[in-house]
């Protein structure tokens, strides 16, 4: 019952966004601000995580491929496909659910509690449209960019570690990266990134926008936003993988 009630409120909140903007310039300004916040603001953590993700993947894959019957290029092939299909979109989105999701929820929650949302409503501004839609659109644009950046950096991290740890030289690694490459995997990766971006931004906005109470509830709703986003991301990951790769 509680789930259905939340689902209903979520749909009403999302539906409320679709109105004509009061002033396109102000919406554009807010959208650019969100792009900077979500994209540029999250880039450092994405870079650090991706670098180590690629490095660890390379070492672990090499550790499991002990036989000489399998060519060393296979390490790069496995690292590449794992990163593109699963690790970069999912792990980075889970991290962003924490970083971006909690920020969105607490920002909107604070605006609700301190009556800033009421102030906007009284001015005649559709707050759902002005506050939530730029966040969702910015996330859907920036999260795929961050995932793409993550793939590149992780692959580079794997290449660097392979060379430094003496697992495989860079030429072999590069040959492995090009071996049997399927461009469709990028489509799968970006589909996941788009979906997860919507989940993170909309779920966090919903929990933040509908905060009732005080500071305690802001914290509770922010945590709830992150937890629910992570669960939905994992479910969506499973469904998308089945739909896109199981045909």
């Amino acid at each position: 019952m509680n789930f259905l009630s939340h689902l209903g409120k979520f749909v009403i909140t999302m539906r409320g966004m679709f109105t004509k903007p009061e002033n396109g310039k102000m919406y554009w300004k807010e959208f650019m601000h969100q792009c900077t916040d979500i994209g540029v603001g999250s880039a450092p953590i994405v870079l650090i995580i991706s670098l180590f993700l690629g490095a660890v993947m390379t070492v672990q894959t090499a550790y499991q491929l002990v036989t000489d019957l399998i060519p060393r290029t296979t390490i790069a092939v496995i690292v590449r496909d794992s990163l593109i299909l699963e690790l970069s979109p999912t792990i980075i989105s889970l991290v962003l659910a924490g970083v971006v999701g909690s920020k969105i929820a607490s920002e909107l929650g604070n605006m609700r509690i301190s009556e800033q949302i009421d102030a906007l409503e009284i001015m005649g501004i559709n707050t759902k449209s002005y506050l939530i839609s730029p966040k969702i659109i910015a996330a859907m644009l920036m999260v795929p960019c961050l995932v793409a950046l993550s793939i590149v950096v992780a692959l580079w991290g794997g290449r660097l570690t392979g060379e430094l740890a003496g697992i495989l030289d860079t030429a072999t690694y590069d040959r492995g990266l090009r071996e049997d490459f399927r461009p469709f995997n990028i489509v799968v990766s970006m589909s996941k990134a788009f979906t997860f971006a919507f989940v993170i931004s909309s779920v966090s906005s919903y929990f933040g926008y509908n905060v009732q109470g005080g500071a305690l509830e802001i914290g509770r709703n922010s945590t709830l936003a992150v937890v629910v986003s992570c669960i939905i991301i994992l479910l969506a990951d499973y469904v998308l993988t089945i739909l896109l790769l199981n045909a």
Partner: protein
Amino acid sequence: MITVSNLKKSFGDKTVLHDITNEFYPGKCNLIIGTSGSGKTVFLKCLVGLFEPDSGDIFYQDQSFTKMAESERKELRQQIGMLFQGSALFDSMTVEENVKFPLDMFTRETLSQKRKRVNEVLERVNLKDSNKKFPSEISGGMKKRVGIARAIVLNPKYLFCDEPNSGLDPQTSMVIDKLIKDLTIEFNTTTIINTHDMNSVMEIGDNILYMYQGYKQWTGTNKDIIYSKDEKLNEFIFASEFLQDAKQMRMIEMKEGQNNI
């Protein structure tokens, strides 16, 4: 002028507003007073459309606010300014950006015209040289004044103030009261103030509505209130022994004055 007729509002089983009918006049400070939980804030939120009443009507001049389409409400809202209890300034914006926000959203003026208007209203509320400060860098009284500046920047016909003096010292409270009163007279706005502050009641209460447990209990002016025979109003106004004594002294003085004549 704002007219309210038979306004009712409930939350679940609890009725918060019972059949409120009242008029709020332009060019006057219309005060809503009452104890905590008497329904003042709910009433104010119904008036500005943050809560939808269960029944009854609210008229802005002759337009029914409750029956208005959302697009009409949006237009009307540009004639409404509101000062919130906690000022509700946007944390991420400077004082100037806060005040400029309604101009950015609803006018097509150039940047220099907007800046000129912002400086005019900031000067009007005695806040020069604070343009670049953030809300976290200014005092509670200054925040209230920025809130007032933002509320009046579009020259509203209707000004709503929710507990404008809460958290302020008596001296700053008087400055805020005087500012609201002056602006009301200067721009002939219909000002509705929700307050607990007895100084405000006595200083600026041109038209007072006393609410008790969701009912309209008493109406009158600040001159009427001191001689009111309404028991519940007297319990509220003269809650402290000091004020009760002050009232008795005043009555004695009045009686003696009449006897001397």
